[in-house]
């Protein structure tokens, strides 16, 4: 199973890279080429070309692309794998490995970008004065954050993939409406119980009133548990996938 899932993971990774490349070309055309051309036509200079924060923008595109991949391509992936004699379990494992492979360069480039721009890594302050080990911990935390974001998208995506077209449309329209109502109720409840909510949040991030410091272990554990729950949820949904007639 491992050999098969590794082969499939590499296939998924290459596929994602190809699509990400295509997305970058579109992004480059929309963000750089078109404004530059308009600028040239209107004012005969190239002020439309904005190179500032270009790496950050590329990273944002990569993250959004990966989220979209996790959300919308699970059923297509299932069709392809089940046609080729691959079980749901192996296909899911390969998908997770593929996303892991894709997250790694995103996190590394993000780290380098943060170092170049700010002289420090994202979340480095959370782990004390940045030295060798702290930087490693900050990078690992960033990686875990990224993975939990993608795992959440994957769980939602596999859940959506179980629905028919009509069911999907109902969920896509219905969930934001219900979500908005729930959010309003949640905010109301939070305002009523501000202290309790603050205590829960403090416990999650490991904030101490005495020292005024955060304990990175708390938030790391929270992210890790979230990651595991989302992965289990996505595995559960993927194991229920079957060919639809729509």
């Amino acid at each position, binding site marked *: *199973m491992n050999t*098969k899932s590794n*082969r*499939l993971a590499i*296939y998924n990774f290459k596929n994602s890279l190809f699509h990400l490349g295509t997305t970058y070309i579109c992004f480059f055309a929309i963000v750089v080429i078109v404004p530059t051309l308009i600028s040239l036509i209107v004012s005969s200079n190239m002020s439309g070309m904005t190179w500032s924060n270009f790496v950050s923008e590329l990273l944002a595109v990569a993250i959004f692309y990966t989220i979209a991949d996790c959300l919308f391509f699970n059923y*297509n992936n299932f*069709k*392809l*794998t*089940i*046609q*080729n*004699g*691959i*079980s*749901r*379990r*192996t296909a899911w494992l390969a998908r997770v490995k593929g996303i892991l492979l894709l997250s790694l360069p995103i996190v590394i480039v993000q780290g380098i970008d943060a170092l170049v721009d700010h002289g420090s890594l994202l979340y480095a302050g959370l782990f004390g004065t940045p030295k060798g080990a702290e930087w490693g911990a900050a990078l690992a935390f960033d990686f875990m954050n990224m993975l939990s974001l993608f795992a959440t998208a994957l769980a939602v995506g596999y859940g959506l993939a179980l629905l028919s077209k009509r069911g999907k449309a109902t969920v896509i329209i219905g969930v934001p409406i219900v979500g908005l109502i729930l959010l309003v109720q949640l905010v109301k409840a939070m305002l009523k119980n501000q202290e309790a909510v603050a205590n829960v949040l403090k416990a999650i991030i490991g904030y101490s009133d005495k020292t005024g410091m955060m304990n990175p272990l708390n938030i790391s554990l929270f992210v890790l548990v979230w990651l595991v729950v989302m992965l289990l949820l996505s595995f559960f949904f993927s*194991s229920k996938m*079957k*060919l639809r007639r729509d």
Partner: protein
Amino acid sequence: MTTLHVNHISQHFGKHQVLKDVTMTLEPQKIYGLLGRNGAGKSTLLNIITNRIFPSSGDVMLDNTEVFENDDCLSKMYLMSEANLYAERLKVRKIFDLVQMSYGQFDWPLAHELAGKFQVNLEERFGRLSTGYHSIVKLIIALCVPADYIFLDEPVLGLDANHRELFYQELLAAYEKRPRTFVISTHLIEEIANLVEHVFMIDDGQLLADEDVEELIARSYAITGPRPAVLAYTEGLNVVGEESLGQITTNYVFGTLDDTRIIPDSVTIEHLDLQKLFVYLTNGRHQQNEH
């Protein structure tokens, strides 16, 4: 050599029962026909065997191993179905690559040979091909994939007569070169009658027949002659159909004839072909159900 056992498979879609306690055994290196009318449950059965959908009850075993979610078992099977599960943007060559990656091997020389014979452009995108060429690409894969059990669901959908003839020839050639089990599900019974050794007939979700073609044909008769003589001779036999033209009547009988009865001179007895037998067996059941 592995044997595939389909054990007591039933399937419901809501209140509608599509398959009712279907049990069958597929032996290695044999060519089977899976026959049934529209909506009989053939495609559902093939989808269950190849783990694409879940049965309501029952299981599928390859020898003593359950096929469900088992990669080793699944890599011994290939289902060429009506549904196009390959991505439309993929080029035919890329699809073949993907099959090789998934199954570990792929008969590229045969794939090139068949692509030449069927005039398939390997650089063409799958989505740009016609219905017939979709079938051809999937048939090429079915013949080149290293699986032991190949299921062909409506394999000649959209193929012209020349391509159908070519496919049957290539199927036999591939079978001779590397014998494996083929299960052909089709409505064009006449075309596969000479290819298949054994047939499964499904009607209304139930297995109606599970027999070698020769034995099945040997037990089916068309008894033709003047109506009174035919009715007298076939009285009490399993008459599955009747046709009349003027004074001449033909009764179709499935089962053994009564050897003690004397065949009248005016009556002729012939064996039915597979298609006629299928039509009368399934029509007979539907007429019984209607009454």
